[in-house]
């Protein structure tokens, strides 16, 4: 799949990114104050979940996950038998990729009378994240996205289509969502542009870096504080030798504490021959990843695997974390990553076993045909494949 034409990047009118970020932080803090005063206040805990997830996703403040766990624990203490406490516990567990726990809490929430729509929405997220019943998930996602006034359902539909290898339809879904956007918040717009960047830069079989870069730039234009978009764009610039541009993107994002920023700054310093600065940033990245993995192992295992397979240079640690990730969610990408980690750690048998498992489980989907795992089977060649960068 290729897209030759320039993407439609005319900016839709949206609240300026700095205003939106200030207002998110303002509303988030206010919500917490309301929650601490009256935890059972209807809607407040639910709002905090949304605000903290946005803070993690867009501002790169990963302490949001700690705060979410506090929220879930406090709510369960305040309302141990309520459906909303169980549903929020499930949402929080899901956000830190504790999928089994999330399913348990969701079952409890449904038994206590949680709203059917919210329960179905979370179940879809869980099934999609863990690669369960994807055909059924796709059918339900399509139906939900077709409902009027459910614009927000199009993003997870696009992501699922991309995961399954339906790249054209994923692109159409995202592009249509951009055209139909009914709000002025820049967060969903930035997210859409970011997803389009990932689609064209990392998911399709033949990535198109320039196209991806354009979407990442648009995402940052909507939301200058969008750390993930900055990191992804910096990776492209780094590949293109534009180290100053990459550095310019990353330095303002350092304050977020996201270790991926330090990791890429280490790469930039290394490419410029500054070993001391590279070592400093690498140490910061390593400390950051280990701190995240210690607190939320399942949520950050796959990110840390990528680090340890490349600049982090610890294949054994990468394999350990890849194994954890695979056991938590046996998706095609998790298999791809785990296989790379096993090969890097010199465990060819383990890699072969995982390849076979992946083939049995995923060969039926379109995305498998473009996967390194499929190439491995087609070639029937035991030569280890190069590590393929897998963004999860």
């Amino acid at each position, binding site marked *: 799949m290729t897209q030759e034409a320039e993407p439609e990047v005319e900016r839709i*009118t949206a609240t300026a990114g700095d*205003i939106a970020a200030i207002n998110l*932080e*303002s509303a988030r803090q206010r919500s917490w104050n*309301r929650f601490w005063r009256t935890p059972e206040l209807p809607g407040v805990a639910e*709002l905090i979940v949304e605000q903290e997830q946005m803070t993690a996703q867009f501002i790169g403040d990963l302490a949001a996950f700690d705060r979410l766990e506090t929220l879930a624990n406090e709510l369960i203490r305040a309302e141990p038998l309520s459906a909303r406490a169980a549903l929020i516990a499930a949402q929080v567990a899901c956000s830190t990729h504790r999928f089994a726990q999330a399913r348990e809490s969701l079952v409890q929430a449904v038994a206590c009378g949680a709203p059917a729509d919210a329960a179905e929405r979370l179940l879809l997220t869980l099934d999609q994240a863990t690669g369960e019943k994807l055909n059924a998930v796709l059918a339900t996602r399509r139906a939900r996205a077709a409902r009027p006034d459910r614009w927000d359902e199009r993003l997870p539909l696009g992501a699922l289509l991309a995961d399954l290898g339906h790249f054209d339809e994923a692109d159409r879904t995202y592009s249509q969502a951009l055209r139909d956007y*009914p709000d*002025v918040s820049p967060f969903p717009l930035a997210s859409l542009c970011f997803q389009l960047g990932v689609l064209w830069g990392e998911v399709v079989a033949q990535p198109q870096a320039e196209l991806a870069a354009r979407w990442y730039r648009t995402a940052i234009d909507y939301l200058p504080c969008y750390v993930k978009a900055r990191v992804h764009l910096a990776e492209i610039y780094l590949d293109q030798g534009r180290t100053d541009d990459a550095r310019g993107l990353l330095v303002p994002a350092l304050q977020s504490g996201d270790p991926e920023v330090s990791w890429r700054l280490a790469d930039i310093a290394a490419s410029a021959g500054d070993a001391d600065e590279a070592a400093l940033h690498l140490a910061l990245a390593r400390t950051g990843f280990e701190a995240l993995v210690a607190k939320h192992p399942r949520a950050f295992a796959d990110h840390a695997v990528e680090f340890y397979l490349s600049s982090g240079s610890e294949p054994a640690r990468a394999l350990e974390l890849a194994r954890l990730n695979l056991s938590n969610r046996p998706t095609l990408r998790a298999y791809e990553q785990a296989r790379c980690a096993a090969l890097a750690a010199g465990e060819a048998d383990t890699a072969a076993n995982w390849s076979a498992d992946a083939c049995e489980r995923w060969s039926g989907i379109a995305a498998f045909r473009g996967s390194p795992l499929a190439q491995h089977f087609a070639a029937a060649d035991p030569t280890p494949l190069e590590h393929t960068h897998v963004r999860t």
Partner: protein
Amino acid sequence: MSDHIDGPRSIGDPSIDLTDLFAFISPDNPARTVFAADVFPSAGSSAVFSDAVNHAIVARRVTVAGLGDAAKFQAGAQEIRFDFRFDRLEAQPGSKAGARPVQHGTCTLPGGQTLRFVVNDERGAATPDGVFRVFAGLRSDPFLLAWLVGELKPFQNLLEHDNVLCFLVEFDTQRVLNPGQGSLFGVIAETTPVPKAGSLVGHQVTRFDWVGRTEQTNVRLNNARVKGDDLRDLWNQQTPFAIAPEFAPIFRKRLVDSLHEYDLRDGKEDWSAGQLAASANVFLDDFLLIDVARPTTDTSYLEIEKSTLNGRPHQSGGGRTVNTRDIDILLTWIVNRDREPLQGGATRATKLGLNTFPYLAPPNTELQTVAESVALNAPADKVWALIGPFGAMWHPLIAEIRLTGAGAGQLRTVESIDGKRIIERLDAADHARRQYRYSGVSGMGASNYTGTLEVAPNGEGSSVTWRVQYLSDGQPTIIIRTIVATLQKVGLESLKKRFG
């Protein structure tokens, strides 16, 4: 809430979400009228207006076109419109890095004249002839919601300490509204997208939100006890003063069903079918009515509608002042048709409104929360045995504790190792749940200072959570926060050393 978070779409960007609309005769000058509207429910102290939204307050002259069961308010075609737009943020000239940026705005007045202002400047801005004066900025939320409406149960004010972003215009009634041609007006507020010249892409919606009378969406249209789809987004997309004819029957039926359900809440039927239908028709024409030739008071809200439905001329200016207890008034009317006053669990909002410009009270100070927790490799009971007694000496920064009294109300005087003295009162202790609450009496430089210490089982071990909330009172927030956070961190780390 009045119109707070009134639909799925509003949850996307709170700064486009209209919460309330007010229209009243200025208590400071009866020759002037005030229109005010609020956006951003539960805005934090740093909240600012969206630069992508047009905020408008619109009035139309209204006539009474029917009385009793034929009650009808007919709005004219001519609009008197006030449009507020806000700029992007600017750094204050000469300010240090990290200083709060400033936001400017522009109000377009009827006739096209524009007036520039600075957000949060309490003096506002006025036209040279003094006819118009405008304000925009963060204020204490004047709305009082002291009910669990679904259960019709009085409750504490759910919006206590909340702030909103307010935009407001005060003007010379005679010169702007010319009441000689008719003094009854319908008023609405709306948020709409700012059009982008020459754009090929754009919003599918023409309006994000609008508000007329209190609680059209959250109470009347979205009554949780009436089955049916959530109509709030559909309602928000209607054109004020001109509900689409194809949707009017849907909204009318929902209003009738909802009002009937409210009528039966107290087990008595106070409304006949004809009266309910008439009331639904009046609420369907959703604009805030004000008669600028008559006085508006804190109790005159809905009087125009009620008198008209009762088949007689109205007596007051109606409108809605910032101190109106509108939910009490509304519930009393729709539940028992004013047979018996219903009163919520609080009688005033966090702060009473002002009698002078800008009428809404200054914003509430943000309640600060500092919370720390630690996971320990020891059973909860064992940890509680050490730290649970209110006078327990376990904190390394505390040199001495003296207790006065016993049980709830007990005082502890804490001497820190650096010589500070803090006095705290035990509010409640629940040893079964391994939790106690206390409040500060003196020594912390903060008001409303409360703390909670709690131990909970955590797998085979336990977790200790220590949470403190306060309002800054004399000292900068950051200083108190640092003191509290240090106390918490050092204390909890000492438990980690002790229990692992």
